[in-house]
């Protein structure tokens, strides 16, 4: 199991922003979605997820809203703000640069 601390610094933010960029999701769904898409490689602990969500909200990149789930329960849904979308673009770009660079080094060396 991969712990979030194993993630490259700041990657959790990117994962969260990317995950909610299509549609608003609540915390549980965000964690599940990351787990699913990464084919269980990334397990996001609640202990990191929620503080990260609060931090992102504090920075004005995401906003939260209470809404009903498909099962008819109240949950807190997070969605991107305009600033958050810009931030996502920036982080994606820098992630691409970084991963490309790492790939280069890993393959060539």
């Amino acid at each position, binding site marked *: 199991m991969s712990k979030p601390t194993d993630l490259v610094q700041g990657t959790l933010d990117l994962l969260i922003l990317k995950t909610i960029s299509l549609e608003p999701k*609540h*915390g*549980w769904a965000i964690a599940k979605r990351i787990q699913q898409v990464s084919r269980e490689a990334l397990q996001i*602990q*609640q*202990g990191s997820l*929620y*503080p*990260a969500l*609060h*931090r992102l*909200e*504090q*920075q*004005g990149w995401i906003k939260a809203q209470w809404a009903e789930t498909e099962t008819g*329960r*109240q*949950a*807190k849904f997070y969605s991107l703000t305009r*600033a958050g979308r810009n931030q996502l673009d920036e982080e994606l770009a820098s992630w691409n640069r970084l991963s490309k660079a790492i790939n280069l080094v890993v393959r060539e060396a």
Partner: protein
Amino acid sequence: MRLWKKLRLRLRTLFRRNSVDRELDAELQFHIEEQIAENRAAGLSNEEARYAALRTVGGITQFREECRDMRRVNYIDDLLRDLRYAGRNLRRSPGFATLAVLIMALGIGANTAVFSVVNTVLLKPLSFRDPDRIVTLSDFLSTGQSPTALSKQVSIPDFQDWHDQSSSFEAMAYYSSREEATIANGAAEFARRTPVSPEFFRVFGVEPIVGRPFTAEEMKRGSGGAAMISYAFWQSHFGGDPRVLGQTIRAPGPRPIAGVLPPGFRFPSNTDVWVSAVGPPGSRGGQNWLAISRLKASVTLEQAQAEMSTIARRLEQQYPESNKGRSVAVTRMRDEMIGNVRFTLYLLLGAVSVVLLIACANTATLLLGKATARTREVAVRAALGASRHRILKQLVTESLLLAFIAGASGLLLAYLGSKALVALAPADLPRLAEIGVDRWVLAFTLGISLITSLLFGVVPALYASKVDLSDALKQGATRLVGGGGMMRMRGVLVVAEIALAVVLLCSAGLLIKSFVALQNVALGFRPENVLVMRATVTAPHPFGLNPTRQFFKDMLSRASSIPGVLAAGATMTPPGNVDSTGAYMIGPLPANPDWTRSPFVVTSIVAPGTFAALGIPLKSGRDFTDNDVMDRPFVAIVNEALVGKSMANQDPIGQTIHCTFDSLNGMTIIGVVGDVHQRGPERESMPECYMPYGQHAFNGPALNMVVRTAGDPNALAETLRRLARERSSDVPMKFTTMEAILSENVAAPRFRTLLFTVFAGLAVSLAMAGVYGVMAYAVGQRSNEIGLRIALGARMGSVLRLILGQGLALTGVGLALGLAAAVVGTRLLKSMLFRVQPNDPVVYLAVAILLGIVALVASYLPARRASKIDPLTAIRQE
């Protein structure tokens, strides 16, 4: 926009804490339930699913804190919580809180009050435009020190040359100011009148708010002139009516009012009426004016001084007979105004800050005592995971709260205190009326509250937060924890308090002894039971002698016949002040007299009977009579100081004396009187020449009647007022007593002596409270041991001795340190001491004895309690 959103979020987290927490709980709850549902779907039983879910979530509380941390409000939140906690704590021990606040409020209040005076007098810029460019030009003798302030004055011909030859100044003016009879809107009274030269108002950059400046015609010599009135005078005498313009004011000659100056402008010394100086310029020797100028923006003080020195040297060569040895000093007005009081005020500020230090030490010992009592509380908090840093922060917050409450109460004390200071301060303290609490004073209070909270709070907090957990949590171990170190620390603080208090006490002792010496100076006259009536006769011709002299002659003869009046006279200047000085020569006048080489003399005009009324002894010869008038030979009476200086081995009676007064007529000396301390008891007598009021026109219309009575002199005032009114309705009068004038003379030493005494009293009380606190604490700590001693047969006396000895040992160390510091520190007072040396052994001994007695009393109470300890109870407590 984003900033605002962030701020709103943070404020929401801060102030709607409950709803935010509830939301967080709901969010986590949802998460857990989803987890449970998943676990169940994976085939676990309800119970197992729930357990597994909770296990993955971990510590909810810690988790919640983390989320809150992410919202970055914890530090504010902590502060608020600490403040609430501190408030609860203080409320829980109201005795301690009240005492600590009281001590610190006294310290902070006294400091703020003194600072409010320092702030106004020394720090606040003068309320003129570019006040730093206003300078005074004063005459000084390059040959030696001038004996009176009067000799700074300048003459109009000299000023005119300075004005025409210099280029350093934007505007230059001269003025002189005195209380004069003034008739405005039908009422005759004394008002301060200041004749000014043309550029006077430009020096200060003021213009009339109603009316217009003086015209060139009104400033011309020999013209009728015009008057300008102060805003206050306009309000009080004309009800602020703009139709005041063009009305005539008599001050003393009639002048049309040209304008009203803006509120707040009263220079010099609360002037009511400014008139254009249109009188004759007088001679180069007629130094009756003060000069003031505004420096050009591009010119420094040093450049101006250099230019003026050059001009003065030129004048010296051009007019050697009048200007030889004389030069000009250029001084910033501010320095000129506050030169005398700066040192006194800083010294007072120093003294009062010592009181604050003692108050801090005192509060620190109180907090140390409290720290011991709180060992367990702190230990419990530490055990629950509070870091030392966090506990320190909490304890310092408590000191901060204490200091701010004390600061607020201190401000109230300071407000009352500064009013008291203004009432007590000598009337010639510059800008006395402006003293009050302004934003600088508020900032000062805030600042010292902060600083003191650190001073008294940090050491106890360090001690309190350094807790050995296992020891502290053991039942009944409170007593031992931190005992030794803390006790030593308190001892050190108390010794410091005593030492500081001793320094203040020695200073106060020296000043008191000096003040007593001042009061005991033989003044050369008898001030008790003398009424002084100042009156000015506004005759139709201001310099016509007859009507004015007639008025006083009538008044004196009527006053002498009133029952209870022992003697009556009149003088230009009652003793205690000097109004006029000059130079004198004995014998026939040489062809080209060099007055600058002649000795100084105080000159004064008196009526017959004045010496008897004031109680100045006539040593030889005769007093003046009503026959000493203009058409009779000119006569004079001199004092013994003058005889000693110039006629030591001759008979002064019959000699001729010349004085630079209103005329250079030779006067025959007809009598010698005893010396009077003309400038107050502090300063030596100067040679003085008295002249009869029938032979001199100078100071014509204004004289001070002095009347010696058998009973209370004040009772006579109404009778005299009625007698004067019978003669004239427009003679303004002012009554005082000789004793009141003298009391003004020693106002400055009285002020500083009183303040030092108050500060020393505060210091000693605080230090003794410290001794008491430490001894009481020590007795509490040692009650087992003492109980054991008593149980083993120690006598009550020996227990008393044990504790008293400890208290006196502390006092002894403090006393020794304090006396040593006082020997060094009191040297600062040297210039303020009169006939007392800074290392006066009597004062030091008295301080030592006084402090010993007080310390004995302060340690006796705890010692008595110790000797009454019931050994059974004390030992059982263990």
